[in-house]
């Protein structure tokens, strides 16, 4: 079965610091990869996604992620965080060999940005 791990449970940064959240998955086949964000009191929203092509994908609000197939990783980055980036971030994997039936999520990383 697929699984997703996220390296950090809680990350605390000051504004303007750089961010990198780690994500690794275990699955032998082809996958789609996602980062979702949940701002306080709001529903889960898609931040960015990777289906194929350029392994460096850009999402909303200045976020980007790089898919490294050999490492089964899909780390999320942002060069300079803002207080409004305070949220919980979830990495997810969706194997493509079952026609998108299953989305498996990591445990989440809580990001706190100090003003």
């Amino acid at each position, binding site marked *: 079965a697929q699984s997703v791990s996220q390296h950090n449970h809680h990350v605390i940064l000051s504004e303007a610091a750089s961010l990198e959240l780690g994500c690794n998955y275990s699955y032998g086949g082809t996958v789609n990869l996602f980062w979702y964000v949940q701002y306080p009191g709001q529903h889960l929203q898609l931040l960015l996604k990777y289906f194929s092509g350029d392994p460096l994908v850009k999402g909303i609000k200045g976020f980007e992620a790089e898919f490294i197939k050999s490492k089964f990783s899909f780390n999320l980055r942002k060069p300079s965080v803002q207080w409004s980036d305070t949220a919980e971030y979830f990495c997810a994997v969706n194997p*493509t060999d079952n026609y998108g039936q299953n989305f498996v999520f990591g445990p989440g990383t809580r990001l706190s940005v100090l003003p």
Partner: protein
Amino acid sequence: SQTIHQWPATLVQPVGSPLSLECTVEGTSNPNLYWYRQAAGRGLQLLFYSVGIGQISSEVPQNLSASRPQDRQFILSSKKLLLSDSGFYLCAWSVWGGMNTEAFFGQGTRLTVV
């Protein structure tokens, strides 16, 4: 455009009482539908998914069941709630048969069993 509705937003139920949470999707046909439970520090746990009417796959054995009586309706139920059923329940949908699709989430239901 597609929208997903989930209700109620919050629910407080006594132990041993039944449960029914409803989710409906508008603006798409034959979606894949999902029920997740979100627990602090554990991420989103997939409970059930459905690829069509009456077709339910259970990912985790538990006190809950799911049904899909109509194409765009997905119901999460329990005959007798346990304290451990407390949590945040999320409904989601994705495009059926789409290899490159994302999951779209509802607002969630906060269930407290007392």
